[in-house]
């Protein structure tokens, strides 16, 4: 496990933390760079960058569309890493992507033809080259929405070796025994999924959020809540309920997709969300019933 976690430090020092998500390459990598810098200025304490995968099963329509735009713009893992290398922001960066993208990077697995030479070197899927390159570009952690704790050992080992955090998701359906198993592997923070379903901006904070935070109270890992958070008011309520951070994605992608002045609007949105989170932290302790 990563004992000197840059991510955990960023959350604790900037408590309550604002964590933002954008899909890299939506609509181009140059624009992503400007957007990430705007979020950093606006108050984001951690920045997740999505490396687009063609089958995003955990994503709602907003992020699916962002991923399609990014793929159409020609976003590849190598260009993604070049962008990360180029970025100069204060907030630590995490990559969020699906497991197949991690397994294939540097595997040398060319699509074969029937006449392929069976003796051709095929390294087979391996998470190691991806993690090595991620560490080289300064990424601080990895989130993989289709990698439950049961299947995480190879990536966990590669991340440990390079000092990267592997962030796990805790769902409303995660029960006691599973919770222990996940939390014993968690590093950086626990990604608390606010509600069942896929990503996407919602108009309210679900009651499942409160339940999940209560169940997680005994674990000494920072907790950040995502899935549906879209407004400063949500951030306030979630932090007041005991979260150490909020994660916002789809609401930012709506700005990327629709705004005439995305850079200014992203900075302002980050500011609003961070402000909301801070109000939540300063609220008087709720009375114990």
């Amino acid at each position, binding site marked *: 496990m990563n004992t000197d976690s840059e991510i955990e430090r960023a959350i604790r020092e900037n408590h309550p933390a604002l964590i933002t998500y954008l899909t890299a390459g939506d609509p181009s990598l140059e624009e992503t760079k400007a957007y990430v810098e705007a979020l950093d200025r606006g108050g984001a304490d951690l920045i997740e960058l999505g490396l687009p*995968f063609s*089958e995003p099963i*955990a994503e709602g329509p907003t992020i699916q569309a962002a991923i399609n735009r990014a793929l159409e713009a020609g976003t590849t893992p190598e260009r993604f890493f070049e962008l990360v290398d180029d970025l100069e922001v204060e907030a630590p960066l995490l990559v969020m992507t699906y497991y197949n993208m991690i397994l294939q990077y540097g595997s040398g*697995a060319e*699509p074969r033809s029937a006449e392929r030479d069976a003796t051709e070197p095929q390294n087979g899927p391996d998470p190691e080259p991806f993690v090595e390159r991620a560490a080289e570009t300064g990424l601080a952690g990895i989130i993989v929405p289709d990698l439950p704790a049961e299947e995480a050992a190879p990536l966990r080992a590669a991340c440990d070796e390079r000092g990267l955090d592997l962030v796990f998701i805790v769902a409303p359906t995660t029960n006691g025994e599973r919770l222990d198993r996940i939390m014993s592997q968690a590093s950086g923070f626990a990604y608390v999924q606010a509600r069942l379903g*896929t990503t996407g901006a919602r108009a309210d904070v679900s009651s499942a959020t409160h339940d999940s935070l209560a169940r997680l109270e005994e674990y000494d890992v920072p907790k950040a809540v995502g899935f549906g958070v879209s407004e400063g008011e949500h951030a306030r309520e979630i932090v007041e309920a005991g979260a150490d951070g909020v994660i916002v994605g789809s609401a930012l992608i709506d700005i990327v997709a629709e705004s005439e002045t995305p850079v200014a609007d992203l900075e302002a949105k980050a500011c609003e969300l961070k402000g909301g989170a801070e109000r939540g932290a300063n609220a008087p302790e709720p009375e114990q019933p």
Partner: protein
Amino acid sequence: MSESTFGSYGGQYVPEALMPALEELEDAYERYVLENEDGFVDEFRERMRDFGGRPTPLQRADRLSERYDSEIYLKREDLVHGGAHKLNNALGQVLLAKYMGKERIIAETGAGQHGTATAMAAAHLDMPCEIYMGRTDVNRQRPNVYRMRMNGAEVNPVEAGRGTLKEAINETMRDWATTVETTHYVIGSVVGPHPFPTMVRDFQSVIGEEAREQIRGQAGRLPDSVVACAGGGSNTMGAFHAFVDDEDVSLYAVEAGGSSLEIDEREGVAPNSATLSTGTDGVLHGAMTKLLQSGDGQIVESHSVSAGLDYAGVGPELSHLVETGRVTPVNVDDEAALNAFHRLSRLEGIIPALESAHALGHVEEAHEDLGDLVVVNVSGRGDKDLETVLEETEKRDLGAAPDVEVFDS
């Protein structure tokens, strides 16, 4: 606990939100399906007999036997209610969902065969049912859309991507991630996260169990080869499972060769679905398996003239059996499959599904390698494919095709 992998393939690569549901399903599968708790298996068999029409015959194909100078037997899954092997699995899973106390059924469908089988099973067992189907498939498989609606299922078109099976599975998984507490996802082949590949295989393995008994009775011995088409691979594993330990029986999985075996990486398109022959290892829809993918790991769009084989992945157990050499992957292109479709219709009076026509196409191409006694799984009937076949036949000069110019235009 049952094994979650087949060698290095399989596993459970799904969002955490679904993991508790997979644990619950695994538990139900072990209790009801493996241990016959509450008489589940007895009820399933009885319903497959009375509602589904099992057992299906194993029929000697006289003209094909003569043509190839060997004994060719057809396992007639086209005679299962609904017209394909799909009901074996759909009825099993809908019944299991009922035993588990689930209130709602969802499923993906490509060609619409699994969707119609699930809709029938849900109507039969009085469960509400929603089917996800890619927009392209909805438009090109209208009769099946109507059949599902007739049986009371909702059909939700999926607009994403190219609008075929892959997108339909993505969207069904998204629904399940939202409704998992009350809903069972009836996956349509031996794909997806554990325990689906094992459980679907078990529901389908009745094909091979019957065929093994039947061929011993009718031909007096085990066959030299068993031949089945492979999309996701459920009729394939269903036909093979009972024979896996019979080392002298060769097993051939026939994939769609489409129009070419090369991948166009720039366009992200493979003009075939020959995953077992040409794919590389990776993770898709919850399992490590062989995939059609780019070097970066993006899944490419597959193609086949037969919608039911048109998928960029394949069941993990088949990947394993190919890797260990037990199953031989072969492929048959669009044109050879169309010819086989016409040939069986003409020579034997059986119109096969285009999927099954791939298996028959392989017998035509390679009968000399298959031995003297061959079982071919006719996984479904071809009524659903007539429109496609007429259209595709018109574009080509096919030796085996009849003249259908009988209508006034």
